[in-house]
């Protein structure tokens, strides 16, 4: 009953908050009530930024703000001098000191719906409190303040305090005192150790760590623990989670097919940078412009993968201009969220409604990225090689070995000079025999299939036009020499043919089924000539299943078609090159006067246009021409080299000839094989070296135009050069002639003139340690965001961060060693009611840990965790079919094996369109857009994951095995031991009793069904320890499941 009353009290407070500001503490963020910390009563003094700007921004700026194109009534309220001037109507909206004379005040309560402001259709009525505030503000002089986040960052004075009190604590104490609050007492050591461990390493504190800390009575024990945790490599893993969300790091491209890309080395760069405590300004420059740095290194180039993290597409039918525009806007939004805390994306289509960012600013910002070399639509490239040190050594060794062999092969081989000359002469003889053939100019040529036939000056015949499946080309020749003993058909490549010919099939092939030759004379019957034998330079052996010869032979063209249309001469794979067919006549031929030689080339294959495309006929009279060549006919350039007399060769010709010879000389075969093996070894090894997408700069940046209303179809907008948004452009910097680069952008982001970056980053880091930012709205430091609840503290931390060399560890240490951080998170009910979101900092916060850490906790407690740092992303078990709606290609999912199954959550394969379901259930970001913050939901899917996901069941059975093997004593002793492993504290008697009841019930039940017990304890791939009886093991597994499921286990407090 007491408890029930307590709950109802909480509810009544809730109702009060919703009821409209009577309890204003923490009631709203950037919202219409505009209630700052002191608004429980009316503020003593009106502050524009705290009290007025949020009202104007939410209710008025949409029509009377920075978007001048959409300005109504000639009234602009965000700039004081314009707000005080007359509007289009001639009336003055604001007359300082004269509320009654101010049109604005008149419009607030007008009964005329046409006059009332804000207009009723906007659905944004003002509350009486807000109206009163506006009136008072005008009555008191309508003073404006510059927007807080745009004010130069100046280190505020630290309030006085005793020597032992740090700066953070002094700011917070001063604030609490002013608001009548008291800090909570320091948390106990166990809680502190657990909090620090989760916040700094993402892993729960082990019982050993807690015990050591509790036992360390010497001064500085706390700071020592902090330093120890900051020095672990797990610190970088923990810090990386937030950064990877805000930059939208993922393993896949995101759109449509959502295919993989190489990018994980960027993730390792991030966690290494945190571990090395890389100054944040350097971290910024490397990511935006790691390729442009004067000292660009592999490391900085990997960092420049930042510019490639966006969503990309491979979808067919996507239009370049469309996606060029998507990529540009994606990158601008990223800079806005990651560094500036500005919702620049709004200015894609119109000038920003609330903040001083114009559409021109937007596209000028986009122009910084116009030099990023990339395929707009299609597969990403493999990226830059990122070898480890040992891989780099091995790659260098293999490269050197291949180079050494290559140099040896290409070096001089004086002993082989005679061999070279022999080789040359053999080929020369072949060339000389070939030269005995004489091409004959056709008198006519025609195609039976209706193709167009052209006789060319080089005596060749080119076939084009209609593409019949079968053809017969008939060529007539007059004027051949006397005593012809052989006929030659050269088939020739030609650019007009598919695959360059020589045939007309798509692959450049043809099938010559039969050659007929006859002597014709007008008015007399034709005299058929007989062939003795046939030879060809190339006979195709592939696709010869139906060919009765077993290959596509020369012989089949003179078999009088005895073997049908699947016999014939064909030449693959020699498409695109010349080949030749030689036919020996049975009897020498001399044409009598008036006689002509007619050659009919039959092509009866009948499938896929396997007809001749380009050929030339020739004859020979010398028997030497018909001797089959002893060596292959040298082609083109080599033939010329062969013909040059050694005495007349230029050194260049000699070198070329040697190169040809080395490639085939039998004496060098061993060396060539060694080189080939070495080169293969090198490329094989290179294929094992990770690659990652990096930024490469294009010399020709894409043209960036302002797209009216964001419409990429309109290509008439102004062309924009890279520029910093005008409102922030440093006045001191003279406009330069050169085009600004991404490095200039990065330099500006971390320059002293930039008021935003340090505030944005400090605020985001603060959230990691308190659950909420000092300004609650992490990604919008504009007018629609929330002025910070502790503005001096935020500015002090931001200045300290920037002036202290952008030292992240120093900042983190400063925060976690403060008394403010060390407060207890258990708070009196009145405080919880007054300040549910802990905006005042009169206590610590408590929240369910991030998705990755939920997994890490189970793995660590179970003993399964493999703490290896970095490497390719891994695949925890995932329900079958979860990726069934992915396509191009369809994808299966192979869960990682061995140690990779037990890696920390942050290494999980990040499939943007289907993020691992256990991660998603705990609010992991999909990383499609930059996300400064995650939800912290509490949904049934989380229960299903922790209860039933095989990863967690396996962790439970491994944890149970630990309990049975590592703990000793009776049930109670073991239960207590297990409890300590999970929660680093002892269980209460009631907790122990509840667990014991579970153990006994499950033990009795599993004893009835040992088969079920053994099935249950086989979940997952982890090897089972020997000698465990499945029945008690299964019962203890359920105890372990209960422990891993506890709210406290997954809560940081």
């Amino acid at each position, binding site marked *: 009953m007491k408890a029930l009353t307590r*709950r109802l009290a*909480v509810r009544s407070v*809730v109702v009060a*908050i*919703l009821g409209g500001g009577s309890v204003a503490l923490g009631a*709203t*963020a*950037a*919202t*219409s009530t505009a209630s700052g910390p002191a608004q429980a009563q009316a503020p003593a003094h009106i502050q524009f930024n705290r009290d007025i700007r949020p009202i104007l921004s939410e209710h008025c700026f949409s029509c009377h703000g920075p978007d001048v194109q959409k300005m109504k009534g000639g009234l602009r309220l965000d700039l004081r001098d314009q707000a005080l001037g007359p509007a289009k109507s001639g009336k003055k909206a604001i007359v300082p000191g004269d509320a009654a004379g101010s049109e604005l005040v008149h419009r607030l309560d007008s009964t005329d719906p046409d006059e009332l402001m804000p207009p009723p*259709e906007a659905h944004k009525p003002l509350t009486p409190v807000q109206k009163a505030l506006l009136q008072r503000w005008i009555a008191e002089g309508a003073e404006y303040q510059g927007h807080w986040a745009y004010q130069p960052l100046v280190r505020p004075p630290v309030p006085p305090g005793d020597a032992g009190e740090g700066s953070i604590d002094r700011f917070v104490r001063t604030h609490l005192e002013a608001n009548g609050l008291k800090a909570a007492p320091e948390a106990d050591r166990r809680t502190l150790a657990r909090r620090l461990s989760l916040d700094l390493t993402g892993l729960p504190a082990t019982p050993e760590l807690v015990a050591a800390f509790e036992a360390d009575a010497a001064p500085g024990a706390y700071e020592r623990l902090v330093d120890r945790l900051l020095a672990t490599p797990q610190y970088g893993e923990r810090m990386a989670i937030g950064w990877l969300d805000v930059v939208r790091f993922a393993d896949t491209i*995101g*759109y*449509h*097919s*959502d295919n993989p890309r190489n990018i994980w080395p960027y993730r390792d760069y991030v966690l290494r940078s945190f571990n090395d405590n890389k100054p944040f300004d350097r971290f910024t420059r490397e990511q935006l412009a790691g390729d442009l740095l004067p000292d660009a290194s592999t490391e900085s180039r990997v960092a420049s993968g930042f510019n490639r993290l966006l969503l990309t597409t491979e*979808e067919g*039918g996507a*239009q370049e201009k469309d996606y060029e525009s998507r990529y540009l806007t994606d990158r601008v939004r990223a800079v806005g969220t990651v560094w500036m805390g500005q*919702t620049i*994306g709004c200015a894609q289509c119109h000038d920003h409604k*609330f*903040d001083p960012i114009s559409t021109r600013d937007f596209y000028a910002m986009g122009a910084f990225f116009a030099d990023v070399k990339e395929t707009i639509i299609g597969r990403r490239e493999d990226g830059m090689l990122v070898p480890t040190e040992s891989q780099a050594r091995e790659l260098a060794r293999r490269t050197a070995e291949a180079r050494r062999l290559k140099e040896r092969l290409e070096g001089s081989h004086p002993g082989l000079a005679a061999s070279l000359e022999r080789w040359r002469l053999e080929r020369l003889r072949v060339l000389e025999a070939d030269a005995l053939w004489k091409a004959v100019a056709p008198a006519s040529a025609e195609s039976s299939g209706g193709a167009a036939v052209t006789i060319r000056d080089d005596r060749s015949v080119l076939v084009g036009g209609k593409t019949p499946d079968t053809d017969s080309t008939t060529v007539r020749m007059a004027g051949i020499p006397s005593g012809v003993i052989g006929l030659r058909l050269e088939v020739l490549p030609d650019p007009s043919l598919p695959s360059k010919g020589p045939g007309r099939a798509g692959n450049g092939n043809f099938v010559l089924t039969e050659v007929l030759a006859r002597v014709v004379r007008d008015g007399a019957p034709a005299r058929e000539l007989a062939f003795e034998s046939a030879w060809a330079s190339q006979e195709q052996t592939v696709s010869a299943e139906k060919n009765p010869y077993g290959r596509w032979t020369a012989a089949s063209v003179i078999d009088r078609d005895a073997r049908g249309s699947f016999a014939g001469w064909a030449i693959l794979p020699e498409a695109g090159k010349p080949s030749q067919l030689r036919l020996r006549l049975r009897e020498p031929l001399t044409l009598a006067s008036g006689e002509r030689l007619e050659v009919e080339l039959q092509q009866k294959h009948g499938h896929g246009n396997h007809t001749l495309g380009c050929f030339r006929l020739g004859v020979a009279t010398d028997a030497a021409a018909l001797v089959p060549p002893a060596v292959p006919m040298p082609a083109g350039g080599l033939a010329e080299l062969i013909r040059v007399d050694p005495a007349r060769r230029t050194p260049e010709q000699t070198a070329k000839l040697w190169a040809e010879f080395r490639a085939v000389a039998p004496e060098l075969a061993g060396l060539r094989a060694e080189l080939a093996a070495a080169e293969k070894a090198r490329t094989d090894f290179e294929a094992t070296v990770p690659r990652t997408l990096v930024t490469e700069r294009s010399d020709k940046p894409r043209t960036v135009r302002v797209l009216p209303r964001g419409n990429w179809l309109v290509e008439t907008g102004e062309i924009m050069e890279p520029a910093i948004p005008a409102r922030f452009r440093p006045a001191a910097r003279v406009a330069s002639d050169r085009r600004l680069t991404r490095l200039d952008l990065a330099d500006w982001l971390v320059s002293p003139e930039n008021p935003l970056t340090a505030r944005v980053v400090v605020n985001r880091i603060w959230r990691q340690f308190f659950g909420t930012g000092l300004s609650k*709205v*992490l*990604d*919008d430091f504009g007018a*629609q965001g929330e002025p910070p609840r502790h503005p001096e503290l935020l500015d002090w931390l931001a200045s300290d961060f920037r002036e202290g060399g952008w030292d992240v560890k120093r900042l983190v240490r400063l925060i976690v060693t403060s008394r403010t951080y060390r407060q207890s998170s*258990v708070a009196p009910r009145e405080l919880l009611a007054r300040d549910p979101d802990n905006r005042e900092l009169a206590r610590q916060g408590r*929240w369910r840990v991030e998705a990755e850490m939920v997994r890490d906790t189970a793995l660590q407690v179970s003993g399964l965790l493999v703490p290896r740092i970095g490497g390719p992303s891994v695949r925890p078990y995932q*329900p079958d079919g*979860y990726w069934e*709606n*992915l396509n191009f290609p369809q994808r299966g999912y192979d869960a990682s094996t061995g140690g990779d199954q037990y890696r920390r959550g942050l290494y999980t394969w990040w499939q943007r*369109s*289907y*993020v691992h*379901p*256990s991660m998603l259930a705990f609010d992991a970001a999909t990383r*499609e857009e930059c996300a400064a*913050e995650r939800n912290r939901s*509490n949904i*049934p*899917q*989380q*229960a299903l994951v922790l*209860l*039933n*996901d095989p990863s967690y069941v396996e962790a439970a059975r491994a944890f149970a095995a630990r309990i049975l093997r590592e703990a000793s004593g009776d049930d109670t002793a073991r239960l207590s031991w297990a409890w300590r492993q999970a929660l680093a504290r002892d269980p209460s008697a009631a*907790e122990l009793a*509840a*667990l014991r009841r579970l153990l006994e019930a*499950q033990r009795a*039940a599993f004893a009835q069904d040992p088969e*079920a*017990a053994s*099935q249950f304890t086989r979940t997952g791939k982890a090897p089972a320890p020997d000698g465990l009886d499945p029945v008690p093991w299964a019962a203890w597994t359920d105890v372990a499941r209960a422990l891993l499921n*506890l709210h*406290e286990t997954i*809560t940081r407090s």
Partner: protein
Amino acid sequence: MNLSPEIRQSLLQQQTRRVFLGRASQGLGAVALGSILQPRLLAESAARPRGMAGVVNPLHVAAKARRVIWLSMAGGPSHLETFDPKPKLVEMHGKPMPESFTRGKQIAQLQGQKLVCYGPQLPFRRFGKSGVELCSLFTHLGSVADEICWVRSMTSEAINHDPAHMFMNTGSQIAGRPSMGSWVTYGLGTEAENLPGFVVLTSLGRGGQNQPIAARQWAAGMLPSRYQGVHLRGKGDPVMYLGAPAGVTRERQHEVVRTINELNRQHDALVDDPEISTRIAQYEMAFQMQASVPELMDTASEPASVQALYGCKPGDGSFASNCLLARRLAERGVRFIQLYHKDWDHHGEVKQGVEFKAAEIDRACMALITDLKQRDMLKDTLIVWAGEFGRTPMSQGGSGRDHHNAGFTIWMCGGGIRPGMVYGATDELGYAAVDSPVDVHDIHATLLHQLGIEHTRLSVKFQGLDVRLTGIAGRVIRDII
């Protein structure tokens, strides 16, 4: 995440309710948990209020519909072979597409190619008293044509699948906005006690153009995760991780859940954290889902006549089976039910493709309408049938059609939509919507209106903006309601 006052309100209400349930769980909560094992207790507890309230309370306007069944025809159905007759295009078959139609418009895969008219590949005929002309393959749908409102002037901003689905579901082409199902559940809450308020089912028929669908299509975006769509799967556990581990019976699982909740309760007494009560309630809900979801999926319990009406067999994973499941979900108070049927992407062989699809959906759609009507649920169930875009009147590769967003057809039925009417029209070649063009925001505005929500008043604050399903556009199509 930057929570708006509305979300806070909902969370706090939620928390308050859960706080109450959680605290009383020695009494009521225990009944809820125990009731799965003892049906009699379940019957007794059925008297208490069910589901979860939404932020639109009271409703902005009188609601005509209480739930939505959205049939997503993924891939982009050809309006020219389904519901938009174009005799003029028959005449123009094979002739060049007049440039006056296409100049300055977005074109997908036909970029830079010669554009040739491609006549409709299937015959049309009149159906019903309204005499609406539909492709003659759709005889079943034709038999209920007088229940349906055909919107023949639909348009979309996007022309590629992924962005077009995003636009149709979230009103934005930028990833990360809440899906309409999430908006509706956020606005109205759900009446389903042991089921999610927003459920998604997918099916694939004959054919090869199986375009991918990303889970972001049913994501809650910046709304709390509980409003995300839950994908009920045909294979394996219908809800991921629903099944208890191998070897663990329902009784054993119950024992574990009971212990977890007891230990959480003990801890809550020490630290006084409202999240713990919520956690306890979620474990109860999860445990109940382990029974309620399999019961839901068991369509074998439907009478033979119903199975015959839909033309499906239990567990066949077909679109028809999903339609039957949609009705079962609707009966159980699920607010937004979205079915994806894939393979409408007919770049080639559009005739055969539509023949396949018609065989898969025609009877099923009729059955869903008929079944709901028989149960007197059609009047407050809004059915929407829509692709993410339509297809070109121009030929692609001589047998197909390319993506097309300037004009296509969707239909709506039930939930106060005027039955038996045709709204809007494309030009004589079926290229652009010329009479009463409708865009995606208009459909969203109309859908919300039928549910009792003014679309301009359902928003959340995100990055300084009042984010709405309808963006800064959208108008209720008064003529069809």
